[in-house]
């Protein structure tokens, strides 16, 4: 049986699949995000009968226990050893579907692995502008308009990278957006082979006019960015500190702006004007 590597940007997790059915499911659900890349990080997946007699609980409990990162719900148990980069994940039948249970687990695990690669997942919409050849990130609370922004950008001029969870790589050389197989309502056409240079990060809100402002201090930007991260509460202090460092680096390299937009595609004119005036990246400063 082929041993695929779940690949998201610089994140790579080799999946050892014991079960044919599980292997087929992974091939179908993560098509475009499987590769043969070599990686020290490995996860053995097993299909098993019900794990707990407790009441069905979809939400995962995640945390650290000495050298292990663990995930558990009534349909999934995962132990991932941090020192060796190897783990095991047992998935059991669930009313929510094995796909959903597995994806929930992968979301947590990939966020953990992403941190080791100086990358962070954001609850955000990511869109690539073919004309500007740059990607833009749109974040905000639930209902702020991430899916609306994606729907308004569903033309050949743009590529929707994700409407829910995007992976952002943060290096001194630049900020890159990577597609992920984790979607909300709209499934993108992206794959792990793509990396998009980022030229704007926007906190969005619907309004009567299209307008971009930069009202936030750097510390406020970091706090706002942190508020749009998934699973922060699951991580220990060390990793939260690491996240804060990455967010500070992100805010210095690509300051967060506020985009007020009408429910019309014309907001892209404002973004194009912003891009042409700021050329996307502010001077990189030491901190």
């Amino acid at each position, binding site marked *: 049986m082929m041993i695929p590597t779940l690949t998201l940007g610089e994140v790579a997790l080799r999946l050892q699949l014991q079960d044919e059915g599980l292997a087929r499911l992974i091939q179908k659900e993560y098509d475009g995000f499987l590769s043969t890349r070599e990686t020290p990080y490995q996860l053995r997946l097993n299909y098993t009968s019900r794990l707990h007699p407790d009441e069905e609980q979809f939400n995962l409990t995640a945390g650290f226990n000495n050298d292990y990162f663990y995930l558990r719900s009534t349909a999934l148990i995962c132990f991932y050893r941090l020192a060796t980069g190897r783990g095991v994940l047992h998935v059991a039948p669930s009313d929510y579907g094995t796909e959903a249970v597995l994806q929930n687990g992968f979301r947590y695990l990939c966020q953990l692995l992403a941190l080791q690669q100086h990358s962070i997942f954001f609850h955000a919409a990511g869109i690539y502008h073919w004309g500007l050849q740059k990607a833009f990130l749109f974040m905000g609370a639930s209902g702020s308009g991430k899916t609306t922004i994606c729907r308004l950008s569903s033309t050949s001029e743009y590529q929707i990278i994700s409407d829910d969870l995007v992976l952002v790589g943060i290096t001194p050389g630049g900020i890159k957006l990577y597609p992920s197989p984790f979607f909300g309502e709209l499934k993108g056409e992206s794959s792990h082979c793509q990396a998009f240079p980022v030229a704007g990060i926007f906190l969005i809100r619907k309004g009567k006019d299209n307008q971009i402002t930069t009202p936030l*201090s*750097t*510390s*406020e930007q*970091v*706090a706002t960015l*942190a*508020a749009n991260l998934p699973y*922060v*509460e*699951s*991580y220990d*202090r060390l990793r*939260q*500190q690491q*996240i*804060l*460092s990455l967010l*500070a680096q992100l*805010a210095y390299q690509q300051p967060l702006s506020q985009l007020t937009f009408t429910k019309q595609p014309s907001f892209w004119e404002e973004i194009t004007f912003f891009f042409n005036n700021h050329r996307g990246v502010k001077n990189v400063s030491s*901190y």
Partner: protein
Amino acid sequence: MASFINQNADVAWRKIAGEAVLVQARQRQIIIFNEVGSRIWELCDGRHTLGDIINTLAQEFLVSRRELATDVGSFLKELFQRDLVYCVEENK
């Protein structure tokens, strides 16, 4: 006996552009302190008492101890209420 004030070990924080950004994950809260608040937070390192903190700030910000006492006291009271700091009783 002296009461040394210490940061709660669960709180992740980083000073960014002179302001401390704190992540209190269990409470799902992110807190930003201004410059003075950030300095007070830094001084909550388990080696300073309330009196020490007031003395340090009085020197650094050229403000009288009397003026500072009330503000620092109420600020620290809020930190205690938010479970961001705790006291360690030790012989000084």
